[in-house]
C-alpha cells in the first residue's frame, strides 16, 4: 500500500533541501543578523509545511517567499518598536554579522542594497538572487507586474550609483 504521508514528507524534504539555502540567504540579506535569520527561516518552513499538501507545486516557491517576506516584515516591525532602532525596516547596521564568506563584491552589494527602500530591496533580491519573473515578484509583494517594473527601474538606477560608490570594480 502506498504511504501517502511518507511520500508528502519526502517531497517536503526535497523542497526544503532545495530552498533552505535560498530562503536563509534571502532572510539574512533582509535582517542582517545570522541568529535572527536562522530563527525566521525555520519559522517560514514550519508555516509552509503546515500548508504544503494544499499548495500547487508550481506555486510553492512564490508561497515560500511570500511567507519569508511576511515574516521579515513582521520581524522588522517588532524590532522597530524598540526606540533605539534605525530608520530602515530591515537594516540593522550596528548588529550586522560579518558573513562567513565575505568578500568585497558581496559586501558592496549588501551595502548598496541596504540603501534601497524595502520594496526595492525585496524586488532586487527576488529578481537577481531568486531568478523570479516580474509576475512572481508581483505575487510575493502583492503588487502588479507593472509596479515591479517601476520598482526595478528605480532600484537598478540607485544600485548602479551606490555600487560605484562602494567599489571601483563596476566597469561602466
Amino acid at each position, binding site marked *: 500500500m502506498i504511504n501517502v504521508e511518507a511520500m508528502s514528507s519526502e517531497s517536503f524534504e526535497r523542497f526544503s533541501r532545495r530552498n533552505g539555502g*535560498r530562503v536563509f540567504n534571502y532572510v539574512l540579506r533582509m535582517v542582517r543578523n545570522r541568529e535572527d535569520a536562522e530563527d525566521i527561516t*525555520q519559522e517560514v518552513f514550519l508555516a509552509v*509545511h503546515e500548508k504544503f499538501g494544499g499548495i500547487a507545486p508550481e506555486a510553492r516557491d512564490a508561497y515560500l517567499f511570500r511567507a519569508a517576506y511576511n515574516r521579515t516584515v513582521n520581524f522588522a516591525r517588532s524590532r522597530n518598536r524598540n526606540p533605539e532602532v534605525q530608520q530602515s525596516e530591515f537594516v540593522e547596521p550596528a548588529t550586522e554579522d560579518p558573513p562567513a564568506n565575505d568578500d568585497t563584491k558581496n559586501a558592496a552589494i549588501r551595502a548598496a542594497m541596504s540603501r534601497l527602500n524595502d520594496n526595492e530591496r525585496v524586488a532586487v533580491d527576488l529578481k537577481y538572487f531568486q531568478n523570479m519573473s516580474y509576475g512572481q515578484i508581483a505575487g510575493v509583494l502583492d503588487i502588479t507586474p507593472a509596479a515591479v517594473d517601476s520598482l526595478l527601474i528605480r532600484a537598478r538606477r540607485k544600485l548602479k550609483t551606490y555600487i560605484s560608490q562602494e567599489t571601483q570594480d563596476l566597469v561602466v
Partner: protein
Amino acid sequence: MQCERIEQRLGAFLDGELSPAEAQEVRAHLMACTSCQQALRELKSLDAFMSDYEDEPLPPTLERKLAAIGHKPMRRLRWVRDLSLAASVAAAFYLGIFVSGEVADGNNADDVFAFGQESLYSLYQEAGR
C-alpha cells in the same frame, strides 16, 4: 524623448519581460542610438556584478532543523487521516450491527455494542502504529 522612454524599457528588455513588439522596438532603437547602447552596457555590467554574489552555506544546525520539519505530520494529512479513521470506525460499527444481527440471530444490544467497541479498539490500535 524617445531615448528616455527606451531607457526605461532596457531593464525589462534584458529580463525578457517585454512583448515581442516592444522588444523589437527597443532593438531597432538600439541599432541607431549610441547613448542607449551605452545605457544597455551599463545595465549589463550591473547585472553581471550582481550575479557574482555568493550565497552563504546553510548552517548545519539549521539544515538539521529543516530536515526534522519534514518528519512532522502535515495538518492537512492529519485531517484526512482523522476523517478516514472516523469513517472506518463508523463503518465498522454499522458492520458490527449487521454481523451481530446475523450471528446473534436477534437484537441483543449488548452484543452489538461489544462488537462495535472491539472494532473501534482494533482500529485505534492500527492507527496508533
